[in-house]
């Protein structure tokens, strides 16, 4: 593979309209010696969204039990479906299962939201649903790869990396792309830059005020004063050692990097310090609650990160257990919903009241949904994967409030064809809101101009945009 473009190549390509990006900030940020920096860059056209918070609920959340009630399920409950349901053909059945939960009509938009999500019910007017999502992958890993990289296989850069590549980030003392929490079964590949330069890769952060990033915390056996001296000494040695290489930018960058690391240490610890928030805010996110606390912290931290100028925050929502409810969905889904509900709703409300929702795009989705039929036909049935039709929602910058796009059939099985939306459409739409022309955000790799969307047909989902 090819590490990165030489400066000459990059300049040549800039002249040819390389992604149309204004690469005016070359080497401006001392931290990066190469041509690739996180210095903010102008978008292709005026952006609606400055930042993105991507709430990624891996495992296949059952959106028909959460946001998308289907009255017909009741009618066919326990009976064979009126048409063929294709599952994975392992433990699948044709027997319909009604949602075990009640739905309540909420907000001005009057949409019905499951009572499993009491907090989300209160903020539902802020979001637009895409109710006709479809993916061409039926198992977790390939669907998750598709969801974040546009390809069903390992080895491609993720959405956050592409966004950072295009736009850089506002705050040079923090990473531009942060991944919070755990729960994607494909692991760190869900926020990898693959063959894009490593500067664009997602940095794993934790909602731990003491050690939010690897190596960010001063070792316990080193006093603050000692660390300051250590830093000064490294820099003093580096100045002594420049010898015959006074013009070397790489060596210069390394000196600047120590300063940057010191600033990052302060900045990252500051952002991760949730105790700086008011009690009212902490309560809103439920950070002190047992079940909702862990995810509430991630959501609160996501807000603090975008507030501090981080471009792209990916929050994994799998930490509360396994959304892959093949069996005992009645036993498992309430706890899973409880795990994410409060934090998710708090994030939307909090961003809104601070005026941040105007510039921050929030996206919520799993890699696929779940079938309206029963899997594991026993005392505690579940639902199998459903890539044919599921829900996703978006809120914030440039997205309509309280709008619904598309639908699935009356059992919630398959997206109605004329409304079908694939991940490429979502990737195009997110980039569009950030002011990026998804067709022009390309990187020359292995003999071709690669992009996130690639050759998959895609369109910007104008219907849900303001």
């Amino acid at each position, binding site marked *: 593979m090819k590490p990165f473009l030489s*400066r000459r190549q990059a300049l040549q390509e800039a002249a040819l309209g390389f992604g149309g990006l204004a690469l005016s900030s070359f080497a401006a940020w001392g931290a990066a010696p190469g041509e690739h920096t996180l210095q903010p860059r102008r978008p292709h056209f005026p952006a609606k969204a400055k930042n993105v918070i991507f709430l990624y609920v891996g495992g296949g959340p059952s959106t028909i039990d959460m946001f998308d009630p289907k009255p017909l399920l009741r009618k066919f409950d326990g009976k064979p479906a009126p048409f063929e349901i294709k599952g994975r053909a392992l433990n699948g059945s044709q027997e319909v299962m009604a949602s075990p939960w009640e739905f309540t009509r909420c907000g001005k938009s009057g949409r019905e939201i499951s009572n499993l999500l009491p907090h989300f019910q209160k903020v539902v007017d802020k979001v637009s649903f895409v109710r006709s999502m479809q993916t061409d992958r039926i*198992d977790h890993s390939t669907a998750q790869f598709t969801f974040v990289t546009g390809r069903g296989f390992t080895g491609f850069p993720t959405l956050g990396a592409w966004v950072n590549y295009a736009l850089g980030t506002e705050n040079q003392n923090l990473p531009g792309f942060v991944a919070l929490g755990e729960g994607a079964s494909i692991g760190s590949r869900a926020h990898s830059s693959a063959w894009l330069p490593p500067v664009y890769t997602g940095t794993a952060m934790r909602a731990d005020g003491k050690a939010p990033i690897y190596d960010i915390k001063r070792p316990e056996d080193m006093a603050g004063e000692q660390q300051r001296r250590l830093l000064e000494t490294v820099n003093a040695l580096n100045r002594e050692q420049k010898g*015959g290489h006074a013009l070397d930018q790489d060596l210069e960058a390394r000196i600047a990097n120590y300063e940057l690391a010191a600033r990052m240490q302060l900045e990252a610890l500051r952002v991760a310090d949730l105790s700086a928030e008011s009690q009212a805010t902490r309560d809103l996110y439920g950070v002190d609650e047992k079940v909702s606390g862990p995810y509430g912290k991630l959501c609160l931290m996501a807000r603090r990160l975008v507030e501090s100028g981080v471009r792209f925050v990916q929050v994994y929502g799998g930490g509360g257990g396994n959304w892959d409810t093949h069996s005992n969905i009645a036993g498992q889904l309430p706890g899973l919903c409880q795990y994410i509900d409060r934090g998710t709703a708090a994030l939307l409300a909090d961003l809104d009241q601070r005026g941040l929702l105007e510039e921050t795009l929030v996206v919520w989705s799993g890699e696929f949904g779940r079938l309206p039929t029963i899997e594991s036909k026993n005392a505690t049935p579940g639902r199998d994967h459903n890539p*044919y039709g599921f829900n996703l929602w978006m809120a914030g910058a440039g997205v309509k409030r309280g709008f619904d796009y598309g639908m699935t059939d009356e059992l919630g099985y398959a997206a109605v064809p004329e409304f079908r939306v694939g991940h490429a459409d979502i990737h195009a739409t997110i980039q569009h809101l950030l002011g990026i022309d998804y067709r022009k955000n390309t990187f020359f790799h292995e003999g071709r101009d690669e992009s996130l969307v690639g050759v998959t047909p895609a369109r910007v989902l104008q219907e849900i945009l303001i």
Partner: protein
Amino acid sequence: MRVGLFSIAALGAVSLLQGQRAPLFKDEILPVLEKSCVKCHSPKQAMGGLDLSTFAGLMKGGASGPAIAPGKPGRSLLWVMVESDKMPLGGSLTAAQKQLLRTYIEQGRFPTAEMDAAQAAREAARITPEARRWWSFQVPVKPGVPAARRGATVRTPIDAFVDARLAEKGWRMQPEAERVTLARRLYFGLTGVAPTPAEMEAFLADRTPQAYERLVDRLLESPRYGEHWGRHWLDIAGYSDTRGDAGDSVREVSWKYRDYVIRAFNKNKPIDRFLLEQFAGDQLVNYEPGSSPRPEQVEALTATGYLRTIADITDNQTIYEVDKYFDALQKTVETSLSAVLGLSIGCARCHDHKFDPILQKDYYKLTAVYQATWDPENWLAANLGFGPWPSRMVLDIPAEKRAAWIRDVTSSDAKTIRRLEDLLEASYQRFRAELKAGRELPAERRAELRRVIEEDPDLEVDRNAAQELVSNKELDARYPEFSKWKEEIAVRRANRRKKQSEIDPNYIEAAWDVSKRPSPTYILQRGNYLAPGAEVGPGLPVVLDHPAKPFAFPKAAEHPEWHHTGRRLALAQWLVARENPLVARVFVNRVWQFHFGEGLVRSVDDFGMQGEKPTHPELLDYLAVDFQESGWDLKRLTRQIVLSQVYRQSSAEVAEYLAADPGAKLLWRKPPLRLEAETIRDSMLQVSGLLNGKMYGPNEPIQRGADGQWVEDGTKGDANRRSLYLTQSRTRPVAFLHAFDAPTMTADNQTQRFRSALPAQSLALLNGPLVRRVSLAFANQVWEQSKGDRAAALDRVFLAAYSRPPAARERAIGEQMMAAEADPKEGLRLFVQAVLGANDFLYSY
């Protein structure tokens, strides 16, 4: 809006893969035909002579003529009939179904005779005489060595070629680097570990003119050399210790291939043989699949680990895996071949290469070479996790012991353990039910209940059942027999685990032809396995093949004694043949790149038309031909390079040259290089006296450290071994190495390291667990050796870390640091950490 329930749902499901593009026959069109047409137009009935149950039938048409005129719905009988609702009889297609058929007729791809001819013409047009004349497709000829300028230092032919280009500008190479710098460069470049003070002293003490040459010879014989250069090759091969499946499972015996590579470099195995073994070791030794390998076959089989490095997510055996099979097959073709051909053939998976004269057909001809090994219609699981599934592992056990060994493994306790677990779970549930019903169980009742449960042959339990009101824990507390039961399960499990971990080393992860008659290879339209086009056999890319006499792959049927197709071996022999224009050039260029940071062709993976042309074409050809003539002798090539003045010159900046040629393309200096991640870690361990030089064997385990980062797990296995022995995971990279750009192989392979300068590196050097641990050991050792003498301690620190005594100002900085601490030893620890974090430690100048 009210939608028709049945039709929409049915369409939604069948046209899953349909977007805006042309529909696919098998996936989208056939279901519609099957539903509405095939009842009358089947092979059995074929009303009107028309059979619509297959693609061939559709294309053949019926008594009234062809059913489809590609691109012309109006002239397609099929469309005319359904559009007017004349067909299907007694009904009509929905608007959506009609639209689908129409789009298919308009945009679908149909292999008609005209289209085939058009395709052939297009292909011919791509392989123009100019394309054939592209520089890297010409067999290299050894050029004459240019005459050197007066006063130029010419130690090897390399210098003459480089000087000739510098002369065009009136520039000169730099004088030889200072001895310490040069020796360090050599240690880092050949062994990947900093020299010890004693080694440096010995070198400096040798004042003879052959001192440097002797050092070169000594380092080429050091076992460290094979580890360092083996690591380079593992990058090119895309080596990883995890599979890249959903959970990124650990490959238990991947290290055998790693060890093969290290040994090959240390033994100076001729590179042509090295490539032959990796591409076709199984065929070289005519390995019979399923048999116990004979001792002399083991090495060659292990070498085929080269074809096993791509992320293989096919371990999860379900019916939806076929596209993953194709992906594994194709990635193996692309990665293994681009590594040696320096062409990005992956573009041609979906269409003819846009820039290079590589046809889509070429891509699938190469795929056919591998098809018998990774056969999508005869698939082997990557691992052993699926019991009876055939797997891609060779069991290296002598034939006479084999049966007993298999019996021992397969008669494992798995069933017993499972049964015990079921019994336990069922007991929990029954006991819970009794308790909830308010019936405390007396001992005899418990025994009875347990017997009933145990005797139930059809026992079924739900492991996810809710533990309402009474938890399992509470039951454990109340009934002591549960704990005993659990203990028994735990003991059996532990035994089984132990047994399994002991047997793993008997396997080899190899590649072999699953059968002599692989399934046919089709050109996949747009790379989609659901849209197979024409069938192709094994062959070379047209542009690299002889125009009149195409390369003939063997016919396995003519060799009854073969256990394989012979295709990969034939390909490998073509790769290392003297007439192959690319392989030696690409290999030599990679070697050059590892020494100088950039290749003579800077785009090391692209010798095609999008790549950069060589900066020194004659030098490249000279080295490539010379390398072939020497019998692909890598140590000889390396010696040639490191003995040259080009390599030995100083890295000092010359402002005028730097302004005109910042990347030193003309090689007017040896560019300074930030060391690779492994070299930094290994050298840290070396200077602090911690390095454990143990070679070979299973990977050292990794674990999560205090702040969540992955670190080596020194508590298990051996601590402080060289980095290439640490488990190299695609998703759980050791944080320190990852920060310094060690590859995770998430994208196939990594032929050139990033040399980034990111703040994560500074953080790792300020706060990371490795540097703290190493600094402590380093400081303790130095303090002890210098018996508390600060000046002597500083001398030792600099000699160990930088191979030189401190400069006056550096010494002052060190003394200041020690003075600032109440405990000078603590001050020394901080100071050595600063020394390890400064540029003189991280760079090879």
